[in-house]
């Protein structure tokens, strides 16, 4: 396959007052893998969406082998052999694997009865990537790693020569990650160009021979990976002179369990947990690792008293806080910080004041004349660093970081004994992440117990006192901070995967 050079030259793109890309120029060569490295919000996705034709730049151009290109939409980019695998898959869960591939393939036959010509050609690439995937299975029943392979097959089916992967490893188990690394290296050896958008240094080390680092919309550095040290990369990503990462909280002095989870069981239609037993001491941060889909949501809700239990109990200071058999009245003992706060933690159609004060809805007096306590609300919003601290502002207009701060401001107000936090820093920028950790650690210091669900193994390893691994609805193991490492935790997470791919 003949090589080609793709260049992005002087790309600038604004969203309102935010400069997502500021005069960025990079080059992508065939037969190489470029890691586009940067923190959340650095502008990496925007840049690649420009290349993919999904977004139009305000200025700058795209060149292929020196020829300027006009991508009015993804169709043009696809015609030029550029394909993108997004973080949010564009697969249709209710359809089968084969149907999804047929959908994405312009050469699919109109008549799709078994035995029709052309029906199986769409499956050729996928059968190489994932030989034991049944094309008749519904995508909804597949694991995330497998879905990603289908997305990749979709892109390759269109004869893509340049493949962009957006944060591909963020949803994979360690085993699936290894498999992906292998595939990337294969594609590179095959002469394709791969661009990997990521914020993880492990990804860079595994497959990228070129690295471009972005921060706040600007290209900070670009060049061969081996020319940069790890520390240099980190400094470029988060900027030298920025405050050091939050210091991990000290281990609690006394190890008396305050929160006792005993043989917990709960079930939804898609997930279930069984036999969960945990103990968390006062001032202890227990991390729960595990790939999404192993029962995290059910467990978090069960702990917070928001989901009925089929077995077991959760007690805080000896008092049961679980839904068994009736829902507990929220009394401030347990704070719950759910994932995707706009969806699960607030009512977007109400104002900030309503969302901030929501916890006492059942204890309020019946009549609510007059906007009482508005000054108090404004003060609380300021204290929580919510911007803008306007009580009557519509909650839907808040950015992710401010929204999370609002939720924390509400949940942590009553000095809770147990805080259940689910992916609290997902999608937040560095500053907001800092604030969230700072607040949580402050409560730790005051004696609260925290159960923290996270996908970022590195963060868990750095800050949690102990890490429990949730796998298929059970606790696969618990490790102390001193004895935990990536490989060990990964083992606990993946034993299932090994059995499946064996």
């Amino acid at each position, binding site marked *: 396959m003949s090589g080609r050079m793709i260049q992005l030259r002087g790309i600038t793109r604004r969203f309102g007052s935010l400069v997502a890309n500021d005069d960025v120029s990079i080059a992508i060569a065939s037969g190489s893998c470029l890691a586009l490295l940067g923190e959340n919000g650095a502008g990496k996705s925007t840049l690649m969406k420009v290349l993919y034709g999904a977004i139009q730049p305000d200025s700058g151009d795209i060149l292929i082998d020196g020829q300027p290109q006009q991508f009015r939409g993804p169709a043009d980019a696809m015609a030029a052999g550029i394909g993108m695998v997004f973080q949010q898959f564009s697969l249709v869960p209710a359809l089968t694997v084969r149907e999804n591939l047929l959908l994405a393939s312009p050469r699919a036959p109109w008549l799709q009865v078994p035995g029709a010509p052309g029906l199986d050609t769409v499956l050729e690439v996928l059968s190489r990537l994932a030989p034991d995937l049944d094309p008749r299975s519904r995508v909804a029943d597949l694991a995330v790693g497998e879905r990603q392979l289908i997305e990749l097959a979709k892109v390759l089916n269109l004869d893509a020569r340049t493949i962009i992967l957006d944060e591909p490893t963020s949803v994979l188990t360690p085993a699936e990650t290894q498999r992906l690394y292998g595939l990337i290296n294969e594609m590179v050896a095959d002469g394709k160009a791969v661009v990997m958008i990521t914020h993880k240094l492990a990804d860079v080390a595994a497959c990228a021979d070129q690295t471009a680092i972005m921060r706040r919309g600007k290209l900070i550095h670009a060049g061969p990976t081996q020319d940069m040290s790890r520390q240099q990369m980190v400094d470029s990503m988060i900027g030298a002179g920025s405050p050091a990462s939050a210091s991990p909280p000290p281990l609690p002095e006394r190890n008396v369990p305050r929160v006792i989870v005993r043989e917990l069981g709960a079930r939804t239609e898609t997930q279930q947990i069984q036999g969960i037993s945990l103990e968390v001491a006062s001032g202890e941060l227990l991390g729960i690792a595990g790939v999404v889909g192993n029962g995290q949501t059910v467990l978090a809700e069960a702990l*917070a008293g*928001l989901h009925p239990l089929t077995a077991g109990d959760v007690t805080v200071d000896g008092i049961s806080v679980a839904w068994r058999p009736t*829902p507990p*009245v*929220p009394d401030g003992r347990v704070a*719950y910080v759910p994932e995707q706060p706009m*969806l*699960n*933690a*607030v*009512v*977007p*159609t*109400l104002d900030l004041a*309503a969302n901030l004060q*929501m*916890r006492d*809805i*059942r204890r*309020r*007096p*019946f*009549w*609510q*004349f007059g906007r009482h306590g508005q000054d108090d609300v404004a003060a609380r919003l300021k204290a929580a660093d919510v911007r803008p601290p306007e009580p009557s502002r*519509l909650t*839907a207009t808040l950015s992710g970081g401010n929204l999370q701060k609002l939720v924390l401001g509400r949940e942590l107000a009553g000095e809770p004994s147990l805080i259940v936090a689910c992916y609290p820093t997902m999608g937040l920028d560095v500053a907001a992440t800092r604030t969230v950790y700072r607040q949580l650690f402050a409560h730790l210091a005051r004696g609260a117990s925290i159960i923290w669900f996270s996908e970022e193994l590195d963060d868990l390893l750095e800050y949690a006192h102990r890490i429990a691994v949730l796998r298929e609805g059970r606790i696969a193991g618990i490790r102390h901070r001193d004895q935990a490492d990536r490989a060990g935790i990964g083992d606990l997470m993946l034993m299932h995967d090994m059995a499946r791919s064996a």
Partner: protein
Amino acid sequence: MPNLAKHERLAGAALSALAFAIVALGFFAVIGEPPLATLLSMVEYAVGDRYSLSETLVKMTPILFCALAAIVPARLGLISVGAEGQFHIGALIGTGMMLWTQPFDGWLLLPLVLFGGALGGALFGWLPGILRARLSVNETITTLLLNYVAVLMVSAAVYGPWKDPGNLGWPATIAFPDAAVLPQLFGTRVHAGLLIGLLLALCLHVLFRFSRWGQSLDILKGNVRVGRMMGLDYRHHVVIVMALGGALAGLAGIGETSVIQGRLQPGISVGYGLTGFLVAWLAGHNALLAVPVSFLIGGLIAAGDTLQLFNKIPASSATVLQGLMFATALAVPGLIALWRSRRG
């Protein structure tokens, strides 16, 4: 139209009214009537003199109740179109109450009959409510189907066991005794039900805006899961708003039957249920706004009747106009948004 400033909403409403006027003129032209003259005639027939005004108010009364019957569930985000059925069952049970208390007399009669009406309507609100709460059955479909059942139940009663032979074959019950009937006002056909309706609209508005209950409904409507997190029981509230809405429509039913019709018989409603739903929608599901809007639509329907009498234009034109009004009200926000995006 959420998330718009007050003046934007006002402008939108004015635009809708203007758009509807144009559409109405178009309709008249299509059916071969002089557009402007007919429109003006309708206005005159609605409020032109004392009699017209009283007829408008007569129509307004059940429409207002049926609008409230749709508004209360809508506060929880439920789309209930069951007012027509709840109207009929309210009339049924209220009439049953009248028949049952026949031997007696006294001031208790009226409240009992009204209570029967509310109870009947509440029943046909409670049923879809409990289905929604327990089994997540869509309340729009259940209420729509129950409407037909209710109308047939009334027919079954008045063609059958409750038929008064004194009506010489006409399927109807005996007449309501005076003690069981709401007093009429100023010698017109307008009855005290209107005052009750106005009072209820005001009370509901105050409750929605200024009570813990109203705030709970806001939370649950916006996000059920979050409401549950705060200790609110969605199912409980579903049943309450549905039953309450039904009770309101039931009151409309017994009111119309006892005062205006005088007895239970087929045809006690001319689509008040659906009209009430329209009013609720046009009023933005605001209980106070439902009052002027139901006045307007009441005028429309009353004028339609007169139009049939004097101008020989069928009264169904009022139904068409209502449908066109609904469509216009739905179209205008979208058109505004399109116009805005075009301007960049």
